Every structure is written in C-alpha cells, then in structure tokens.
C-alpha cells in the first residue's frame, strides 16, 4: 500500500522547502474540490500532498499601480465579494459567482482552478480574457512570471513543472472606459460545469463611441480556455449597438465551429454559442461603471 505524506506550510520558506521535495507524484492541495476526488481514484498514487490552505499570504486582491494582483489561494467566495474585483475585473467576479455551489466557492481557489486545467474552468476563461500573467514559485525559491496562455496547455495539462506552485495572477486593472462580462451555459442554472463559457473585455471610447481593445475568452470549446483573435477583430472599432451584438453572436458560433469541428456536441454548441454571446454582451450593461451609458 502506498502512503501519502502531508505537509501544510504556513510561510513562504516552508512552502519552498515542501516544493523542494516534490516528485511527479506530488500534488498541491489548493481547495480540493477536484483534487480530493481525483487522488481517491484507483491507481492514483500521491507521495506528497502539499496543503496550501495554511498560507494566508497567498490570499489577497490588491491594486499595484495599474495592475490588479490576486493571490492564488483566494477563494471564489472572496473574489465574488471583492470590491477591487468588482470595479476592475467584473468578468472575474461574474465567473467566480457561477463556480459550483456556495460550499464549493468557499474552499475552491483561483489558483486551483487554473492548475487543475479543466477546459471548462470558469476562472481560467475570465483570466484569459483579462490577459493575466501567472507568477509561480518553485523548490529553489525561484519566482517566474509568464502569460497564462503559456501555462494552459490542454485538458488537465499545464506547463507547471513538478514542485512549481502558482502564487499569483496579475493583469491590467480595467479602468473607467473598460467593461467586462462573463456568461456561461451549463446543464442547469447552478452547480454545473460550463458546457460553454465566454468572458468579454472591451474598451468603450466615450468620445468616438466605438469599441477597442476587445478581448474574448472562450471556455469549454476546446482543450483549454483561449482567446479568439478572429472574434475580437470583428468588434474592433464598432459601435456598441445591436448589430455589434449580432456580429459577436455569429462570430461566436463560427469560433465554436472552428474549435470543435466534427465533435458530437457541435450541433448544439454552435447554436447555443449565439445565446451565450448575447448573454455576455447583455451583461456588459451591468458592468461598473454604469456611466457613460452603454448601448
């Protein structure tokens, strides 16, 4: 019978020491809502479990110049209620509020959501649209920062090495001229993984009254959340009108067709993508600030 060693570092030094012991069979416990099920599967062997829940230093949201920094162990409940996230990363707030159930959101963390690398991870979809960077720490105490898109490789696959822990996400805080939104289609209203998700970030120039800096993250339509440049290009420079909404919706259906050609779920998803895009577009209306008037 295999045994599992459990360590619960409380300081960065202890965390580095724990990470230094990591092997390919080491797992990081960052909430556990997926991991606990996974490590109990037959055939799974875990030699070392590093429990990050005693690391308060990894739980924060703070403004740093133009950047918003989010600690990896910040729970979805915390993200959902955070005033900085509300003001500067509304799509992340919306995504956080739709993860699982209240019980899951109380323990599941944004770092765990990304590291678990589910194609339908709501947090990852929002962070992709926010062009987030990931900072990691390893067993030698080395910190590295790279774009999130370089970390997410596929379903259940990341570029993280053994003993490399995500410690922080950082992205440009959205300003007064930006709006963002998140929408998701699951099997039911709540406590459902996404069958399709979209995070939308735009800048709305109040003088020219056109959209720019459009970023669209799509989830659950491929191996991992991704930004779709074609879709983004369709909206660039357009007014915030119903025609733009229609273009986004049709472009979203196209993006789904490009992403999962031949997949059995395509006939459903290409049609549902239209509804998803409208949901995301309409949610831009409720994004703070509510002035200048939108659409």
């Amino acid at each position, binding site marked *: *019978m295999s045994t599992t060693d459990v360590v619960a570092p409380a300081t960065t030094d202890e965390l580095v020491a724990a990470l230094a012991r990591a092997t390919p069979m080491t797992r990081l416990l960052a909430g556990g809502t997926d991991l606990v*099920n996974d490590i109990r599967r*037959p*055939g799974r062997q875990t030699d070392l479990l590093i429990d990050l829940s005693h690391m308060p230093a990894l739980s924060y949201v703070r403004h740093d110049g133009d950047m918003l920094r989010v600690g990896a162990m910040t729970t979805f409940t915390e993200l959902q209620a955070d005033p900085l996230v509300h003001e500067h990363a509304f799509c992340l707030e919306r995504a956080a509020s739709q993860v699982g159930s209240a019980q899951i959101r109380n323990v599941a963390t944004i770092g765990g959501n990304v590291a678990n690398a589910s194609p339908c991870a709501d947090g990852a979809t929002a962070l992709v649209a926010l062009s987030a960077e990931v900072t990691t720490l390893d067993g030698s105490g080395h910190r590295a920062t790279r774009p999130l898109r370089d970390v997410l490789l596929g379903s259940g696959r990341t570029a993280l090495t053994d003993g490399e822990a995500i410690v922080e996400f950082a992205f440009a805080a959205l300003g007064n001229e930006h709006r963002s939104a998140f929408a998701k*289609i699951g*099997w*039911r*209203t*709540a*406590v*459902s*993984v996404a069958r399709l998700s979209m995070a939308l970030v735009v800048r709305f120039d109040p003088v020219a009254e056109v959209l720019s800096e459009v970023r669209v993250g799509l989830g659950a339509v491929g191996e991992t959340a991704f930004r779709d440049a074609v879709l983004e290009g369709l909206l660039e420079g357009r007014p915030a009108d119903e025609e733009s909404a229609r273009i986004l*919706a049709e472009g979203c259906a196209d993006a789904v067709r490009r992403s999962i050609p031949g997949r059995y*779920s395509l*006939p*459903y998803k290409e*049609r*549902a993508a*239209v*509804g*998803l895009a*409208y949901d995301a577009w309409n949610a831009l209306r409720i994004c703070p600030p509510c002035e200048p008037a939108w659409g």
Partner: protein
Amino acid sequence: MTEDLRYVGKSYPVHDVAQKVTGELVYGSDLNFPGMLHAKLLLSPIAHGMVRSVDSSRAEALPGVIRVFSHLNSPADTYCRARIYPGQECAIDETLFSEHVRFVGDRVAAVVATSQAIAEAAVALIEVDYEELPALLTTEQALERADVPIHADGNLLYEHHIESGERVDTSGGVLVSSTTGTPRVHHAALEPHVCVAQGHSTGGLTVWTTSQGVYGVRTVIAELLGLEYHRLRVIKVPMGGSFGGKTEFILEPVTAFLAHETRRAVKLLFDREECIRATMVRPATETTIRTACAADGRLLDFEAATTLDSGGYAASTPDYADHMCEKVTRLYRLPHYDHRCQVVYTNTPVAGAARGWGAPEMITAVEIHLDKVARRLRLDPVDLRLKNLIQPFDIDPVTDMSLGDARVVECLERGAVAFDWTARRARARGKGRYRRGVGVACGAHKNGMFGHFPEASNMALKMNEDGTFELSASLHEVGCGVVTTMKIIVAEVLGVHPDLIAAGEADTSTTPFDYGTFGSRMTYVAGACAEVTAKKLKSAILAAAADVLQAPVEELVAREGVVYVAGAEARSVAFRDIARFGDMKHLPAIRAAVTYYATSNPGSYSVQFAEVEVDCATGLTAVTDFLAVGDVGRAINRGMVKAQFQGAVQMGIGYALYEHVDVDEAGRSGVDGFKNYHMVNAPDMPDIDVLLVEHEGDHGPFGAKSVGEIAMVPTAAAVVNAVNNALGTELSDLPLIPDRIIAALAASAGGGA
C-alpha cells in the same frame, strides 16, 4: 368520522429525525464488528464476453487478503434478485459471479480483505482474460442478433399481451400515433448501496441490509446457500433513500456468501460510480400508441406496443411489463384496449424496480400522446381528458376489479381552477428567445398487490406495564415515513399520543412476515393491518377495564389513555392502572396479533400542472410553477404526504429534462457520479403547490390510499407537455436535454435568439 380525528391528518416528523440530524443514527455503512472484513468486487470492464481465465494469485499474495472468489470457486446456482417469497415465479438468471459477463459492471470476482484499501488494491491485481462477444446495446440490436444470445433462451426475455373490450367502429374518427421514449435513470439515493453480513461459527448467518423487504432477502439467500431459514437472520438497518433501487437484492446475496464462506463479518460498500453502473437503473422504455377518437374527443380505440430494455439480467422487468399493461385502463374509459409489451435483454446496466413500477414510464407515453390528440382535435387538454377519465367505482376491464372511490376527475377539475389553467393556457407563448407554456398530465397507480399476490400483512401489538405500547411489525423505513404512519394509525385507534407507541423496523427473527415497503402497499395494506390490530387490542383493554370498573363494556369509552364509563366519568381507570390492578391480572391478556388480508386494490390518482419557460437560444428549460393534486383518500401524516409530492416532482422534473444513463459504443455509461449525472437542484426547483383530495371511500386506514409512487407518475408528462406547448413542438424522446430542444427548434426553423 373525520371531525373526530385527533392524530390522523396532522403533521409529524419522520420517526428518526432527531437521530439523523444529530448524527446518532447508525446507517449500514457505519456498522462495524470485531474482526470485520471488507469486500471489493471486480466488475466487468466489457459489455459482453466470456471469462476465459481468472488469475488471482497476485491478489491473494497481498498481505491482508483473506480470499478471492470468482465463478471458479463459488456456486453456479442461479437466483432472481427480485423474488419476495419462496416459490414465486420469476426469471432466474443471475449467479453470484459471472463466467458469461453481460454488461459493464457485471460481477466477475470479489476480494475479501482486512481493510477496504487492501481489498481495493487486491482487486486491481486480479488478471482476467475475456473473450469478447458483440455488445448488443439497444433492444433493436438484441432482437436482430439472435445469433448472439445474452442468455441461453435468447434475447427476447418476455412478452405480455392484454386486450380488453371490443373493437368499435372508428370510421370517421381521428387517428393519432405517437412514440415516446423514456430514459434509463439512476435512482440517486443519497446513501450508496451497502450490506454487512456475519458468518457465524455455527454455520448460521446474520445480514444487516438497507433492503425494502427482509423476508425476500432471506428466501433468496437461504435457498442460494442452502441454509435453513431459522439460521439466517436478516435485519433492516436505517437507510438513506432507495426509490426502488434497494428493493431487489443486489449486494445481499454476494455479501452473505462471502461472510458464510469466511465465517467472518464482511462489509460490502459501493461507491457512487458502482451504484450507477452495477446496481440497477429504471428501465428504458419505448412505447408506440395508436388511438382513434371521435370528433368530440371520446377515445374509441387504444393500442399500445412497448419495448422495455431489461439490461443484462431480468431482475423484476417481466413483472414491470405486466404492470405497464395495467395502467391505462385505471385512468381512462376505453371501449377497446390492446397492449403488447416485450422485454428484451441488452448488454447494458440491469434494469428493475423504480418508484412507480412502470406507471411513470407508461403514463408519460399516454399523457404525451393525449396532448397530441388534443392538438389534432383542437381541444383543450383538460377538456379532452375530462371526456375520457374513469369515474368513481368504475370496474377496470383489465383486472376486473373496482377502481374504488377514484377521484381523478375531481383532481383535474379542482386543479384546473387552482392553477388558473384556462387563462394561463390562453396566454401568449411569446415569440422571442424565452417562451412560456403550460402542461397538464393525469396519472394512476395502485394500492398494494391484491390481484397479483395473496396480499396480506401481519402485526402484533401489546400494552406495556405502564400503559405504553409496542408494535411488532416488519416495517421498512425507506424515507417515506412508514414507522410514523403506523404509530399515528395505532394512536388514533387507541386514543393515545403517537409518542406513546414504539415501533421498530423489520428483523426476520423478531417481527412477523411481511413483503416489505414497495408496491404502494404500506399505508393501504399494512396501515389497515395496524388499524385492525389496534382495534383488537383496544377491545382487550376495554374488556379488562370492564372488569376493573364493573361496568358493561358497551358503556366504556377510551380517551387519552383513560377508560371512562359513559355518563359517569368519575368512574374511570387509566391504561397503566389496568395493568396493575389485581397483581397484573389483566395485562398478560392485553396483546393482539392480526393477519390482515387485503380485499381491494383501488386506484390512487394525481393530476399535475406545470408552467415552463424555455430558452430557445440555449435549450434550457426552467420549470417556473407547479401544482400537484393528489387523490390520496386521507392524509395520515399531512406534512409527509405533501413532502412526498414535492420530492416526487423533483424526481419527475429530472426524468423529463435532465436524467439519463446512456452508454457509449462500448456499453460503458457516460456518467460516473453526480458531477455528470444531473438532477434538478434547488436553484432550478419551482414552487410546488400541493392540493389533496380526500374522500376516504376505500378500505385503507381512515380512508387513506397510497401516495409515494403515484406522486411522481404524471410529473414528467406535465413538464414535457408544457415544453411542447411553449415551443409548438411534439417532443417525446426523454429527457428533453438542451441538445434535443435546440435540434427540434433548428429542424422546425423556428428557433434561435
């Protein structure tokens, strides 16, 4: 009678609620015995094939492993998991371990070890070589491939044909045909399946089970293992839900065998994935209905053909088929009714008992069909049904029995008013992304098994030395409050509070024979037995009181545990003093034992109304309002009766919109847990109004009829009919998952945002 009721009709919690919320209650999986062993099953990873070899040497070498069993070292005798009394006719096709594996999840081998972890590790070390056979995953495939028999007698397991009445002239009538598919679903009881058995050094055996019928467990195990019945004790332990999924004996025979062989205590506990794959599912059915109607909506002819997917073993599905043919004439007056039902083996999970026993499957098809008829005739669905529903005391032409004081018409009429049906039906469905619709469906079910079995119940009741009472009955609490129900009935008869009555659950060593809690028989049959038993005991109390008070028994009245002389109430004696009077002179005689035989099997009815909003862009359906009306005769425990309807609606909405256990081309189920097996959860549940129609015209205690199964019979059809009303579609392939709704809208080119 009703105005005098002191306890019946009020609301009480289930008897063990305090133990449940404090965590004190000991469930099957909590049981622990000195030296107890743990079993883990090796389940077939393939859908169909022969086991060529089993090499358990590496597993047996693992420290802590006691024994490994497979078909090589276990009885080859077959049994039926659904048999409830000795000699009962049933399809006997199952062995403890299979050489011929018939579905993904079939039992191939078992490890018994000193810990759960060791047993799990050892199972992974067993090497099995399979010769694969073609996997027949649909009833069509199974019927086509007679050259690939899943069982020796072929893949057509059973056929049943019912015809009643005479064909009438249908010329000039409207002919409508429909085909409805109902899905294979998981019962989804919160507690997984578990069984604990203790093999005694004397050769005897004790089994602790979360079964719905311990006497059935005893007969199946005793005959399989060659044990005399008095050396085999089966005890019902508290369970966390069943919904029919624990009615049949799935873990009990194999656990008993392992304990008997090792002469140790053995626990076998399934996880959720095993429960989904390897216990039992509600059978998938497909029913084609052809009707002929007069222009005014009267049904002239009704023909149905049903195919039921039994999965890898028969379980109770032949009986299920019989019952599917006994639902329609309980509900509608039909001049001519013809129903053919075939049951087919496939290489898919075993199908069997599920709440409603064929009624939800059949009634769903009937009620979806009737809405199609209403559309053809341009009749309101309520009006169409009112023209055809049975009336109180109609004779069911299929069973030749009275339907009793059947109040389905009243349910429909009162429900339509309460739901504001006419106005809501006339309201615009909407043309945009979100569309609203309303639907109605009627349902019929039974009250016990009279007509099929010698339906009876046994109980004994005694008064204690202090004037409290103990009921001895083989009760099986499966979550529907049967223990509390029996206490309330006894309390009402004796005139004492239900808290003064103790009642326990079934134990073959100490409680008298009873089939168990299923078949909608508890309140109507066992409850009547409790009423008769309590009346008999009350007579004994009054006889003793007559002696104490020196008054004629006819002049005595009992109230709140005291017997009075009518008109001279100063002359009284408390129950407890009857016991003490004259050195316990009377107490030894104050006991009663009754065998009660049922003599009727009336219909229980429910009519349900659903309002839905369908998102045409995503295909997601929200049930926005719901009314369940029930003809229950008399509510014994009012809160529990309403809760039965509310829970049933949750289950029925899932049946209509979400739940299905599909298998892939290899016969493997795509769902393995609640992460991907979606049930309706709280955020998606509508408010549910429950309206009870109470007439007490039948033979149940205080007029009560069954509720647990009828409550979910019409639910799915009401929801599907509402969706079809919203979209102008004729969807009839359940569940209506978003993909199917979007595909239907795309096909009709009326959808989109």
